């Protein structure tokens, strides 16, 4: 067990990362996921969190693509000055 841990620590490279840190990060990640946010943290495995993160990122990417498409279409139809203004607003 300890050898395993030390091995995993070796894998993790130069920075000293404990399992606790990983768990901490995973729970942080979990807080960002709307599907898992309301669940109790001890009931969700790390693999599940990571899987959900992957799904969520894919969803967000698709959403962003759709939104940008829509935006571009919308902006194309509007006045260029206003479009420029909105674009500048969106850049923030």
């Amino acid at each position, binding site marked *: 067990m300890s050898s395993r841990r030390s091995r995993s620590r070796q894998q993790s490279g130069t920075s000293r990362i404990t399992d606790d840190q990983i768990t901490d*990060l995973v729970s942080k*990640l979990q807080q960002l996921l709307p599907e898992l946010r309301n669940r109790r943290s001890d009931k969700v495995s790390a693999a599940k969190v*990571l899987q959900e993160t*992957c799904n969520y990122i894919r969803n967000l990417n698709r*959403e962003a693509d759709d*939104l940008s498409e829509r935006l571009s279409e*919308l902006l194309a139809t*509007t006045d260029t000055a206003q479009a420029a203004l*909105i674009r500048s607003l969106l850049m923030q």
Partner: protein
Amino acid sequence: MNQRMNDCVPEFEMDDDYSIATSSVPSRPKKSAMGRVEEDDDVMELLWQNGQVVLQSQNQRSLKKPTEILSSHNQNQNQQHLFMQEDEMASWLHYPLNDSDFCADLLYPSATCITSAMNVVARELTVVDSSVTPALAPESRVSEARRSTERASGRDGGGGARNLGTCETVTSSPGGSSASAEPAQKPAVDDRKRKGREADEECHSEDVELESADAKKQTRGSTSIKRSRAAEVHNLSERRRRDRINEKMKALQELIPRCNKSDKASMLDEAIEYLKSLQLQVQMMSMGCGMVPMMFPGIQQFIPNMGMGMGMGMGMGMNRPMMPFPNIIAGSTLPTPTAATHLGPRFPMPAYMQHVPAPDRSRVQANNQPDPMLNSFGMQNPNQPRVANFVDPYQQYLGLQQMQLPVVQNQSMAQASSSKPSTSKGPEFPENHSSG
């Protein structure tokens, strides 16, 4: 086990006493030798079932051999229970044999009493028997003793058969069976011998204890084997879990752009940051989508649609109407011909007010900008009451926000100017815009 052995010690002492009492018999050696042979046979028979201990019982004295044998036997692991029994038996067995030897030594000069010799044999047999099957009832022991002694007496042809029949009672009152010829000498010798034997016994008991400790150690070893097996299983499941996590981690890494971190923690950090930025980006874009129609006063009611629809209603484009118009709007002629007709409202105004508080600032600005446009649209609209209907909540909204307007506007202007160069998620827009 020790308890048992201690229990059996007084019995042997009784035997001792008994053999002292009967040691004056002259014809004893032969008988006892015979009895011993027979006893050995019996022991063999009895022990044959338990395997290799038999060898030991003929080797008589050595306790080390049995431990070796037993320990080698014990390597079968799953016979711990049996082993314990054998161990016990070995400790039991040792004494009868010892005892008979002792008797033989003692009884060389003595002669006559067949019955006592038989009794000794019977006694030993019963002892052995009880050791092999500890739960045996006393009656069966007696009968066993009787059988063996009868056999012995039949071979002998001696007249002590009747006496032997009651050997159990005789042994139960050891001292009084027969008179001794040398009462003075024997006790002393016997004392000495007994002391030696007691020491021997102690030694043996220590041996046995050692042996039992050994056995315990070995059982402990086997439990640790079990434990290690459980740990192995645990390790296996742990490894599987880690593999799954690593797999997901890799998938995540592929999803995160420009992430070439090899170690998990920074990977997760990166993922968290990326997720946050993505969320922000989507929020901003949906806000922007909500902002565009806001320039047209007629469709300001559909802002909630844009704002709320950012999650799942993404398929909705300008020329893809998703929802049928609700009654209010269906009855009205919409002032703006461009976007309003294509966008289906999903949420009533209050819902929007409640649910999307975030985009306020930008919308205020957006609202602020197209104010003249709104008026112009309103003037253009032939259907005044309807427009008033639409404008009413909007103006409420505006009026509410206008108190904060100067500050807000300043802020947003400052942000608009300052944040332009530092955008990380900007690239999508110009590209898309230029393409569209």
